[in-house]
């Protein structure tokens, strides 16, 4: 029994000595372990991926601080020229910054998910509209025989394209808002440390922009016969917005895209947009020619924006000169041109400018000539009225003269 107690006592003594020995740390070890742990916290704060984990780290940093508080004098010397409290403040500030950064990333990630859902919705709607437009186009081809039916189909087709353009504008708005608020650097950080599969899904934006630019090009190529000036004006607005969005956010959208062919898609989009722009301008000029002719406005034919401006100037100069000389048909021509020009000014001035057809200065110059024409183009009816008034005055004078002569004659008979 005694022997057992002695062994037990020796064992306890050995354990307590070992435990005590383990607790002994030199100043060198204390400062070294502080520096190592500090660096570890810094690394963790750099790579942590969720706000919850940052909060846990913040709690751990509090314990770390309290563990080393007793050694702050030693650590002040070891950390010179920094101090212990400065280093701890730095770590705490870094943890707060990380928490804010991750919160922002989380919000952006949620925004990306919402955007993805929206994109999916747009894509489906666009597909439906494309199918609808294709079937209408097919029906139109079959209905060539019946003019009335064909015109109804063309109307429906144009309306379908209008809805498609509205949808693209809505898509542009959503994309612009979502990508403008996005901080790509932060998104890349998230990609490095958190769930990259969430990011992969948003790559559809680039693909969708690519598809829209390609489809728009096809629509322009295939439908030049069925579209009217107002369709082109609307398309010009869409093109302008689309191109603006691409110029501002193209790099960002390409960067976020996770597919392998991002650069290829991006360069194809740029090429499509350039082609779309040129084709839209050419077709708009052609339709403008036709529209002016069909409205009885006989401008010299043009095939470029410069040609359009020159034709308008020549036409107006001639008309103003003619109206000054009192040309009989001048007023009717003026009314027709004014109707067209009012529409350009009130509805399409931005489209004309955006499409590069006429600049704002050129439009102002045309406008002043239209005003000048208005001053000289007097309605034919106003001249006739003067003639009638003059005639009536002469007749009245003659009648009065006759009456006076008769009066004189009757007076002389009586006397």
């Amino acid at each position: 029994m005694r022997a057992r107690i002695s062994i037990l006592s020796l064992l306890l003594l050995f354990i307590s000595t070992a435990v005590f020995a383990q607790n002994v740390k030199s100043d060198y070890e204390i400062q070294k372990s502080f520096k190592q742990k500090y660096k570890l916290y810094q690394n963790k704060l750099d790579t942590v991926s969720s706000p919850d984990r940052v909060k846990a780290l913040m709690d751990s940093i509090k314990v770390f601080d309290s563990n080393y508080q007793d050694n702050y004098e030693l650590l002040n010397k070891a950390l010179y020229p920094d101090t212990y409290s400065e280093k701890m403040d730095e770590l705490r500030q870094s943890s707060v910054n990380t928490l804010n950064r991750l919160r922002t990333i989380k919000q952006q990630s949620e925004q990306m998910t919402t955007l993805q859902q929206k994109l999916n919705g747009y894509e489906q709607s666009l597909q439906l509209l494309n199918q609808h437009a294709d079937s209408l186009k097919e029906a139109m081809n079959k209905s060539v025989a019946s003019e009335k039916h064909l015109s109804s189909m063309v109307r429906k087709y144009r309306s379908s394209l209008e809805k498609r353009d509205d949808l693209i504008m809505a898509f542009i708005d959503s994309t612009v808002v979502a990508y403008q608020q996005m901080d790509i650097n932060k998104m890349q950080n998230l990609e490095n440390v958190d769930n990259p599969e969430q990011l992969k899904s948003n790559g559809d934006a680039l693909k969708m922009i690519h598809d829209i630019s390609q489809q728009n090009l096809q629509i322009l190529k295939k439908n030049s016969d069925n579209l009217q000036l107002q369709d082109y004006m609307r398309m010009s607005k869409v093109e302008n917005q689309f191109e603006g969005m691409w110029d501002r956010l193209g790099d960002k959208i390409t960067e976020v895209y996770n597919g392998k062919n991002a650069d290829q898609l991006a360069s194809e989009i740029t090429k499509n947009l350039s082609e779309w722009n040129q084709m839209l301008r050419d077709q708009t000029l052609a339709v403008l020619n036709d529209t002016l002719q069909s409205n009885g406005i006989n401008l010299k034919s043009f095939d470029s924006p410069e040609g359009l401006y020159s034709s308008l100037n020549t036409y107006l100069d001639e008309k103003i000169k003619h109206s000054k000389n009192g040309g009989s048909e001048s007023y009717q021509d003026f009314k027709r041109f004014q109707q067209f020009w009012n529409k350009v000014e009130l509805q399409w001035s931005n489209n004309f400018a955006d499409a590069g057809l006429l600049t704002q200065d050129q439009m102002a110059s045309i406008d002043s000539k239209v005003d000048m024409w208005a001053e000289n183009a007097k309605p034919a009816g106003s001249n006739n009225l003067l003639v009638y008034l003059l005639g009536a005055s002469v007749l009245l004078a003659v009648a009065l003269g006759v009456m006076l002569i008769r009066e004189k004659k009757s007076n002389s008979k009586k006397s």
Partner: protein
Amino acid sequence: MKSFLTTIAKIVLVSAIGLAGCKQSMVISRVDYSQSIESVLKPDQNGMVEDVQHGLKFSIMPLQYAETQDTSSVTTKQIRYIRGAEGYYYITAPDYKNVYVMAPQKDRLRLEKKIQVSNNGVQKPAFNQRTSYIQLLDRKSGESWRLNAKGIQKEEKQMAKNEGK
């Protein structure tokens, strides 16, 4: 003759005072050389250690010879030193039996005192700077000693624990 001797004596006295005044150098007293935290250095294949932070470079081979009587190769894996308030360097290494108190001199360190700590050697030594002495710890056994240029005194364990914090 007497006046001649008096004149000579005056000249010698004035010259002595003048020369003494010229040779007088400035002295700054109460300098504290203490190094806050010990330096832990690894010798290279030639036994040289360099402390970039404190600007010190020397060979450990004389110390190794003093401990092991062997300089055929570098057997010391690590050297630990700290400078005390009075300017002496306290140097030792794992498994060394002694602490070497070295006085800095022009391009050399001179042995001021060799302090024997243990017959078996200190397995995991470490120096701590304390207010009036250097503390030597054996992190393996938990033993501790107070050192100065004159000698060594073993510390009670609880005292060492409190001071080690």
